């Protein structure tokens, strides 16, 4: 009981901060807004609106790498959010590096698009609903007197089984991606990606602030990163902000 009261109060103050931050944003004092949004995050609370609004504030302050980071963070929570996708695209226009994504096989793209239709929690709920419907279908199949109903139960059961399986897989994948910080935004103005996790190794290519990289592995303050066009190299971990 005391625990709930505590979290309830924390939620309330965080909501107040959110409102104050939005007011500051509307009054064009973006740094104040950012400070308040950060305060919410520091209290271990998060949500799509918080990340999204914070990204907007950073965008207005022309701090595009941070804006992109916030939008990416919001997209992780809700990959299907149209507002976030739009603003991320706009922010990505403001950075130096224009990266052509590697062409993907249609099924990978299709899989990703399908997964992005719902957020992780929604997929979890979807799996529960599908499971319930699957049981109903199974019941029909087992208990119906009429043959037609039994057939219906069988085939709809198969469909619900597939939906259940997919949503479980999607939810699991999204859960893993939200728990692991496997991507990052470059924060330093200009960085050189090296061929090995050593300062004296060969320079491979140059990235600028705001570039998005996928973190493949890390060691000794260096991360092995892959950029959108598929190039792979090593970059100091402190020059990027993972999400």
């Amino acid at each position: 009981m005391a625990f709930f009261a505590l979290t309830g109060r924390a939620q309330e103050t965080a909501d107040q901060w959110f409102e104050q931050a939005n007011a500051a944003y509307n009054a064009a004092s973006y740094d104040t807004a950012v400070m308040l949004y950060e305060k919410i995050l520091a209290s271990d609370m998060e949500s799509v609106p918080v990340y999204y609004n914070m990204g907007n504030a950073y965008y207005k302050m022309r701090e595009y790498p941070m804006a992109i980071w916030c939008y990416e963070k919001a997209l992780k929570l809700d990959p299907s959010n149209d507002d976030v996708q739009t603003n991320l695209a706009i922010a990505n226009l403001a950075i130096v590096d224009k990266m052509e994504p590697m062409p993907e096989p249609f099924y990978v793209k299709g899989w990703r698009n399908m997964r992005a239709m719902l957020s992780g929690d929604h997929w979890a709920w979807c799996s529960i609903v599908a499971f319930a419907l699957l049981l109903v279908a199974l019941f029909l199949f087992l208990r119906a007197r009429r043959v037609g109903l039994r057939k219906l139960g069988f085939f709809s059961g198969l469909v619900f089984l597939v939906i259940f399986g997919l949503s479980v897989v999607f939810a699991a994948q999204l859960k893993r991606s939200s728990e692991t910080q496997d991507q990052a935004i470059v924060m330093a103005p200009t960085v050189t990606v090296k061929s090995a996790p050593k300062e004296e190794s060969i320079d491979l290519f140059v990235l600028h602030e705001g570039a998005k990289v996928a973190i493949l592995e890390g060691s000794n303050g260096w991360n092995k990163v892959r950029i959108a066009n598929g190039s792979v190299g090593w970059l100091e971990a402190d020059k990027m902000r993972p999400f």
Partner: protein
Amino acid sequence: MKRIFRLLLFIVCVVPVSLWAQDDPRLTVSTKKQVVVGERFQIVFEANAEGRNFTAPSFQGFNVLGGPFTSTSSSIQMINGSVTRTTSVSYTYALQAYQEGTYTIGAASLTVHGNKVSSQPVEVKVLPDDGSGSSDSGGYAGGGTQEQHQSTSDPQVSGKDLFLKVIPSKKSAYIGEQVVLTYKLYTKVPVSSLSVEKAPTYAGFWTKDITENTGGSLRQSSEIINGIEYTSAEIQKVVIVPQRSGTLTVDPMTIECIAQVRTESSRRRSNDPFESFFNDPFFNRNYVNVQKDLSTQPFNLEVKNIPVTGKPDSFAGAVGNYTFKSDIDKTQLSTNEAIALTLTVSGTGNIELLQMPEPVFPPDFEVYDPKITTSTNVTAQGLSGTKKAEYLVIPRRAGTFTIPQVEFTYFNPATASYQTLTSESYTLSVEKGKDDPEGGVFTSNQEGIKYLGSDVRHIMTGDAKLRSMNTVFFGSPAYYVALLVLLLLFVIMLFVLKKREEMAKDTAASRNRKADKVARGRLKRAAQYLKAKDQDKFYVEMSQALWGYIADKLGIERSKLSMDTVSETMKEKNVPDELTQQFIDTLNSCEFARFAPGSAEEKMDDLFQRGIDVISKAEKVL
């Protein structure tokens, strides 16, 4: 380009005596009003047309030293196809005053196109000689009879007697601030001609020559420098506007001038009358022309940057002191009617360089390029003037529109501050014009949506939907609990159904078991009624025994009991058709007998026997 100035010999005070009437032939006279005894001066009669029979007045009280020197000049001007021809003929006499007093020089006359024109008489005051050197300052125009020759003794003109000076209006300026440079010639000796040898270069400046056009002659005045009186003449006046900061240098200007210097050596000579004749001042043999090159000092201008702090966004490089206004010709109009919006900046400064502020028109307006006109005039402070931008816009859609106010910012170097002036904002109400297609006629003048800008979408307001970090529903205990609950529900449902079915089965089985017993009980009662010959009760009991038995045995509900259901169910239970038929027949006869009373006793017997028979047979099968 080499500009040539002709410096008329020192005429300190030239007064045009008569004013000119346009185009009429006229004769004007100009001369000094005051002379000193012994001073040489000239009188010029000028006619604006060629004529004959020039008659000079008698110059009573003066020695005529020479003349008339006739010179003719004519010019043809073509302006927009109309040709103007100007002719001027001048007759010049050189005179010398020899006695104090006031003298009147009478009218001269000339016959032009058969008409005699006369000049006005002119009064000349002769003052006593004060012993100053002013008598030397009389001189001549470059008369055709005079022969120029270089003196053998090579006289010099010292830098003190003749020098060129550049006078800037200020020593330091901001970028864009105008500075007036005046090039002045200072002299104590007569100068007959001068020409610019080397014009200064103005690297880093925008320049404009504002030398006043005084028609060939230069404006002269006398100035005292270090106690010495000089005659000064403005050679050139230039407005320079620095374009970058730092120390900018204006290169010197070099002019070549020919000064007339009196040669001392030839002055006092022998008493040879011949010699003395040529020593006569009129012949002027003791004046020689000396060529001298004069240069200004190079001049440095400190150019300061315009302060960055407090610079408004609307500042576009205007420096000076301006006023700003706007004007619109109408605010009530109908579509496709043109509006003229005029922005006017006027004041002192680099008006030719300044950028006009641009008004923002509503997007549905058709805006044409503005017509920008600049008019400048020269003042003592430099250039000033007016710049007008005239916008012609045509609203294409009806509605109420606002042309927001326009800001014009300039930097005032005098106060070293920015000044922002704003024009009015106008609200236009545009009505639908008559030639606009009204409803019913749809022409294909639809337009795509115009995007005026792009920005990130606005923040999300309302519910923050906050939750603790890393609380993923999937895989959480709640998730598994939900799945388990569903599964449990399913299993319970299945179990309950099964149980109920079993129970139903149980009742059917007990009915089956008891069927025989019940039937026998009924048959027993039927037998009693048979003995008692109670026909009605017998048939009722008999019917109930048969129906009840078969219903219990086959598990048919009483409500659904009929001949058809019985035969169907018996067929389902694989009862031999013969028995089924027998049973149905027995039932039929029982029902028939029951509702058709008055049958014989043996019939009741027979039915009783058949009933027992069929039940016992059925008991074996079912």
